[in-house]
């Protein structure tokens, strides 16, 4: 509550000094500034994207990118307070805060009065058990938290932004615009003199001379800014001997904020060259990881890869339709897609210094890679066109799903202790996710078999495909079986028990047992060819349940990826697949019956 008032004051204080009109500034250098956030040093570009996504659910606001938006927040808080950036989709919440109901994006100054009015009752919500809150209450709490962070960001550089107060000549610094830092040396003198003034003439400013009025307002402004800034540690952007601190923390430790002040001045006057130079001065030598991450942010390799895979499939379908055999373009698409995909994952490994499968999101990235890569390998080995469709299709679909599994903007999280640095964990996860990929491929092949048979594909093609499926299920068994056991070994090394019947373990085991079951069913001649293939096709459901369903249960040692709202999607998928497979099987069975009749 106090924070909101402090910021409002700051704004009132600086109302004369909104920044110059729309500067044409380049944000490359700014975006490369390193900042410590959530346990990891990242480029300001990433930080900006995460923050913007957190507040607004979008990647750009008013046509400006995240970095541009953040620059405004930091160096022109007056304007930033007017920029609509907080998304409120729940109409009940909007009404609660007396907001115009026509839109969903609100600015800080639009929200401030409503938030201040309801601050006390919200405090009560904060103390309650999070599980007992309604959706509206949770949204409200989150809004308060977001606004609190925003207000901290607005004030990050309050020490170097112009005060908008004319200093009395006695305390002048010789500059036209003064910021808090400029008065640092003389601050105690100013406060003392102001106190003396109050003792001499009382608190009523009507009795003061012009100069005395300026002194009083200067002293008051300095005091307010200092009080508001002292605890501001949100933007850890200054590296002091390996420790990352905020501008205010640096100032209180007698650090030099000159470069930042230069940046602020350059930004506010639209001085593109000065802006760039100041940012470079602050940056110093930028580590490779920061460059890499920024490039990663801008390129967005995974959506691009997904695009190439889809394009590849479309061109391939077109070529087949025209009965031509030109594989160059489809293969080029697949190749580009794979290159982007691999580069994206490699970048993540370098940036995060760990294997690329620590979170659910990452497992999707990896499984899709294996799908696409195996598809290519199978095509190159056996000219298996079905593989190209199945592999690229699955890869594209999984990449499409991936962003939905990110709870917040941050896709590069640091993991909890138990998931770090372990040979067994790394091999376990890589093995089992590769296993998922191969299972999915086998399942897609089985679907293809049913469809091709209905379309009267030549017997030879079907036979080759069946052979492929059989071998793929064996490979799947190898990978998932070994992967599951490696998981047990990791658990033994970490917790002292090889197998604990916990949901993730059970899920993996389910896949393995299913694969073993269908193999033995086939050997014992209890499953005929089509039953076997239907069971292989059903692997899609089993893998989906083991991979995602387990996280929904939210229990056991593996609940480090809790997802909300995926349950429905998963349910639809499983139901849909089951109906599809049953239908394909039935249709094929009927076809056989008709053929025999």
């Amino acid at each position, binding site marked *: 509550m106090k924070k909101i008032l402090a910021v409002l004051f700051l704004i009132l204080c600086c109302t004369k000094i909104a920044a110059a009109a729309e500067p044409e500034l380049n944000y490359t250098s700014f975006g490369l500034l390193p900042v410590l956030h*959530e346990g990891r040093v990242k480029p300001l570009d990433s930080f900006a994207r995460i923050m913007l996504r957190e507040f607004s659910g979008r990647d750009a606001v008013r046509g400006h990118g995240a970095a541009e938006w953040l620059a405004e927040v930091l160096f022109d808080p007056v304007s930033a307070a007017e920029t609509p950036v907080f998304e409120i989709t729940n109409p009940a919440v909007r009404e609660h805060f007396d907001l115009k109901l026509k839109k969903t994006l609100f600015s800080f100054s639009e929200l401030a009065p409503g938030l201040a009015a309801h601050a006390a009752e919200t405090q009560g919500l904060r103390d309650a058990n999070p599980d007992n809150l309604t959706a509206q209450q949770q949204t409200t709490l989150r809004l308060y938290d977001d606004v609190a962070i925003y207000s901290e960001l607005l004030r990050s550089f309050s020490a170097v932004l112009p005060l908008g107060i004319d200093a009395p000549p006695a305390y002048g610094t010789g500059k036209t615009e003064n910021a808090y830092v400029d008065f640092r040396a003389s601050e105690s003198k100013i406060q003392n003199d102001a106190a003396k003034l109050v003792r001499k003439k009382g608190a009523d400013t009507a009795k003061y001379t012009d100069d005395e009025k300026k002194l009083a307002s200067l002293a008051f402004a300095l005091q307010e800014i200092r009080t508001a800034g002292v605890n501001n540690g949100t933007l850890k952007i200054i590296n002091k001997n390996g420790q990352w601190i905020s501008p205010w923390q640096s100032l209180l430790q007698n650090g030099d904020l000159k470069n930042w002040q230069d940046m602020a001045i350059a930004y506010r006057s639209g001085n593109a060259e000065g802006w760039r130079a100041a940012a470079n001065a602050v940056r110093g030598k930028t580590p490779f990881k920061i460059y890499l991450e920024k490039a990663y942010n801008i390129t967005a390799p995974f959506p691009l890869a997904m695009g190439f895979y889809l394009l590849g499939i479309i061109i391939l379908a077109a070529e087949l339709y025209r009965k031509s055999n030109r594989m160059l373009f489809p293969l080029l698409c697949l190749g580009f897609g794979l290159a982007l995909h691999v580069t994206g994952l490699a970048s993540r490994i370098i940036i995060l210094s760990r294997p690329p499968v620590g979170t659910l999101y990452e497992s999707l990235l990896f499984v899709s890679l294996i799908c696409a890569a195996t598809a290519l390998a199978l095509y190159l080995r056996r000219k298996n066109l079905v593989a190209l469709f199945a592999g690229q299709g699955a890869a594209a679909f999984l990449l499409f799903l991936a962003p939905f599994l990110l709870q917040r903007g941050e896709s590069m999280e640091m993991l909890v202790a138990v998931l*770090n640095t372990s040979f067994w964990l790394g091999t376990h996860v890589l093995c089992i996710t590769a296993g998922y990929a191969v299972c999915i491929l086998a399942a897609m092949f089985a679907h293809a078999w049913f469809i091709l048979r209905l379309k009267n594909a030549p017997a030879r093609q079907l036979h080759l495909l069946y052979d492929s499926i059989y071998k793929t299920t064996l490979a799947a068994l*190898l990978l998932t079986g070994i992967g599951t056991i490696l998981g047990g070994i990791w658990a033994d*090394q970490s917790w002292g028990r090889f197998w*604990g*019947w916990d949901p993730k373990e059970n899920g993996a085991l389910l896949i393995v*047992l299913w694969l073993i079951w269908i193999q033995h069913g086939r*050997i014992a001649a209890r499953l005929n060819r089509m039953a076997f293939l239907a069971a292989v096709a059903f692997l899609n459901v089993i893998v989906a349940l083991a991979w995602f369903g387990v996280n929904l249960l939210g229990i056991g040692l593996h609940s480090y990826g809790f997802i909300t709202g995926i349950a429905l999607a998963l349910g639809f998928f499983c139901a849909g697949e089951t109906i599809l497979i049953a239908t394909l099987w039935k249709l094929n069975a009927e076809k056989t019956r008709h053929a025999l009749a």
Partner: protein
Amino acid sequence: MLQKTLQNCRKLALAVARADAPFYLLPPLMLLLVAGTLAQGPMGLYAAQKKFFSSFIFWTGPVPLPGGYTLIGLIALSLLVKFLAFSEWSRRRAGINLSHFGVLILLFGGLLTATGAKESFMVIPEDTESRYLYDYHQRTLYIFENDVLKLSKPFNELKLRITGVPFDLIVQNICSNCAIVKRANEGNYHGMAKFMALESTPPSKEPEADLPGLTFSIAGLKDQDGTYIAFEGMPEPITLYANEKEYKIIFGKRQSMLPFTIRLSDFEKEIYPGTDKARGYSSDIVIVDNGLEWPARIEMNKPLRYKGYTFYQSSFEQTDKMQATILSVVENKGRLFPYIGTLIITAGLLLHLAFVMRGRTA
């Protein structure tokens, strides 16, 4: 006669070992997996595990169904007979045989673990030492006569009436994890039971945090007769006097002792900079065994193995005044078999896959 018996044996063996066995046994096992997993939400991991997987039979209402031990046991039997009697070695079958063999070894290790493994934990505050192990789940009632242990009864063996001491101890209520509530009703309550009552609550997320407790009544001691409560970590044990002897009643997690002592020199929690997410925990300890001392370090994912005990960094306790490490301690004679089994299974599957890829479908 012998010929006929041998023939019948063979037939039986074949029936057990053919591929049909896994075909019929695996679906119930898969269903069991699903049921046992879904049940963990409402029941808790440990209870679901005991009911579905570490059992021979479990009941859904009036219907008995095969539990984990039964199904896995049958599968193991089938696999054993298959491997012993029906697994000739040829290039074609080498991979399959090895895979089966590997699974058998894995299951054998599982048998050793299921029958012999012990899991407990130790809590050691910094700069102190301990040799006591506490069981995560087992509770025991201890009765001391003049400070000498007279009897100890494990939780699940606590019959309603305890005898063997010069008074009757009748168990009213046992809770594996109790909540202490204000005593609402009146009655002949003694000691802390006068104003506190124990209520059973679901198990806590961390099993070390469970508070076991017992409500019981004493008869045969006239003035001391009445209802008492005992829970883990009670400041004073229930003390009764009978026949000029002093009896102390303690209820808590089952304790055992290590044949050596562990001293905690320092506990460290490393966090990610700028957050409070833990990056790693480690305990610098000293093993004190028979007059010899030497330091060792236990970290997450890096346990200490000594004399058949494996010590894992499990968790920690922190108050304003002190830090304590919580180590989980496992004894498991079957612990090497998963590694051996993995090697064999990997070899087998790779071999078989290579064979099949050469074009010959089995």
